[in-house]
C-alpha cells in the first residue's frame, strides 16, 4: 500500500519536473506577460520657473515602429535534454522581445503625458494638449524602439528508486532597450526645430533567488519595461532641454526687436 502511494507520488513529481523542462515558448510568453507593467517612472529633474510666456501644444505621439505593436516574441535559441532513466537534465536558452502585451499603457499616449509632465516640470514654458492656446506645436514620432534579452532555464532530476533529487533554475537578462524619437517644433505651422533624440539602457539581471518561477518571469518582463521607460525618460528630457534652448533664444530675439 505504502509502496503504491510512494510510486504514484514519484511519478507525479517526475511528470511535473519533465513538464517544466519542456516549457513551450507560448508558456514562457504567457508567464512574462501575465502581469503587465507600467511605464511610469519618477521624474528627477529640477523644477524650473516658467521664465518665458510661451505655451507649447504637445501633439499626439505617433508610433512608426510597427514591430512593437504586436504581442512580443519568445524564440528558442537552443535547448537540450538528457533523458536517462535515473538522470534527466535539461537546458534551454530563449530570446524574448517585448511587445505591447507586456505593457500597461498605450505607448503613444504615455509619451504624450510624460512629455507634458516633464515640460511643466523642467521646461521654461508651459505645455498643453490644446492647439488653441498656443502657436507652438511639438510633434513627436517614435522612429524605433525595442527591448530584448536572453532567458535561461536549466535543471536536473535524479531518481534512485527510493531517493530522488531535483533542481531547476531560471535566469533572465541583461536586456538591452533602445528608443529613438524624431521631434519637430512648429511655430504657426513652420518648422523651427527638427531633431532626433535617442538613448539606450541596460536592464538588471534576474535569477532564482526570487521566490518562484512565476515571480522571476514577471520580474524579467518588468525589468525590460523599466529599461524601455528609462530610454523614454532620457529622450523626453533631451527634447525639453532643446525646446528650452530654442525658446530662450526666441525670447531674446523678441526682446532685442522690441
Amino acid at each position, binding site marked *: 500500500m505504502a509502496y503504491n502511494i510512494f510510486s504514484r507520488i514519484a511519478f507525479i513529481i517526475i511528470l511535473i519536473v519533465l513538464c517544466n523542462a519542456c516549457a513551450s515558448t507560448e508558456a514562457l510568453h504567457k508567464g512574462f506577460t501575465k*502581469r503587465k*507593467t507600467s511605464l511610469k*517612472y519618477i521624474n*528627477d529633474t529640477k523644477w524650473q520657473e516658467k521664465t518665458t510666456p510661451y505655451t507649447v501644444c504637445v501633439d499626439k505621439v505617433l508610433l512608426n515602429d510597427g514591430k512593437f505593436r504586436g504581442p512580443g516574441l519568445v524564440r528558442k535559441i537552443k535547448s537540450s535534454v538528457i533523458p536517462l532513466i535515473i538522470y534527466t537534465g535539461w537546458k534551454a536558452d530563449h530570446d524574448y522581445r517585448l511587445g505591447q502585451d507586456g505593457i500597461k499603457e498605450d505607448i503613444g499616449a504615455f509619451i504624450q503625458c510624460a512629455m507634458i509632465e516633464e515640460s511643466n516640470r523642467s521646461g521654461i514654458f508651459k505645455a498643453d494638449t490644446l492647439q488653441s492656446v498656443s502657436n507652438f506645436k511639438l510633434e513627436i514620432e517614435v522612429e524605433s524602439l525595442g527591448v530584448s534579452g536572453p532567458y535561461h532555464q536549466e535543471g536536473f532530476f535524479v531518481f534512485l528508486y527510493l531517493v530522488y533529487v531535483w533542481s531547476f533554475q531560471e535566469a533572465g537578462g541583461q536586456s538591452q532597450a533602445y528608443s529613438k524619437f524624431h521631434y519637430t517644433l512648429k511655430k504657426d505651422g513652420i518648422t523651427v526645430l527638427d531633431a532626433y533624440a535617442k538613448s539606450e539602457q541596460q536592464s538588471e539581471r534576474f*535569477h532564482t533567488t526570487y521566490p518562484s518561477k512565476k515571480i522571476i518571469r514577471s*520580474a524579467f518582463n518588468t525589468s525590460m519595461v*523599466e529599461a524601455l521607460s528609462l530610454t523614454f525618460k532620457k529622450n523626453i528630457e533631451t527634447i525639453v532641454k532643446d525646446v528650452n534652448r530654442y525658446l530662450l533664444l526666441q525670447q531674446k530675439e523678441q526682446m532685442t526687436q522690441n
Partner: protein
Amino acid sequence: MLRRIKNPLILLLIFISCAPPKYQVVNDSTYYDTNDARNPRKTVLLSIKQFTDSEDLINLIKKRDWLTIEKRLREQNRPALFIKSIRHLIEKKYAESYKLLNALPEDAYACQVLLLKIDCLYELKSDTTSFRNQYQKVYDCTPDPKVKSIVKDHYRFVKYGL
C-alpha cells in the same frame, strides 16, 4: 489526520517566521553598503543629524531588541513614534504602522513619514491612490539626495509587485 499534517505545518510556520523582513534600517554611513540586489529590501534612513546614536539604534533594530530601544528613548525623553512605526513595518503590521505615522507631520524625517505611509497603503492593498504620483510627491518633498534615491527604490517594489 492532524498528526499527519502536524510536522509539515510546524516546518511551514518556521519557514514563514524565518522569512527575511521587507525593511532594513540604515544610517548615512551604512547606506551605500546595504543595497543587495539578490535580496531586495526597502530602506529607511535614520539620519545621523536626527539620530546621533543611529548606529546603536540600527544594531538594536537588527537584534529586534525593541525593549531596549523603547527604554533608551524614554529615558532620554526622545520621540519614539517613528521608531515604533518602523518596528511595525518590520513585523509586517502595516495598519498599526500607518496609525502611528498619521500622528507625525508628513515632511518629518526628510519626508520619510509620507514615504512610509504610502508603503503601508500599498501593503494594505489600498487602490484609492495613484502610487506613482504619491512617490513623486515624496521625491519632490525631500531635500535629502539619499532619501530621493530611497523613494525611487520603494517605487520599484510597486512596479515589480513585490
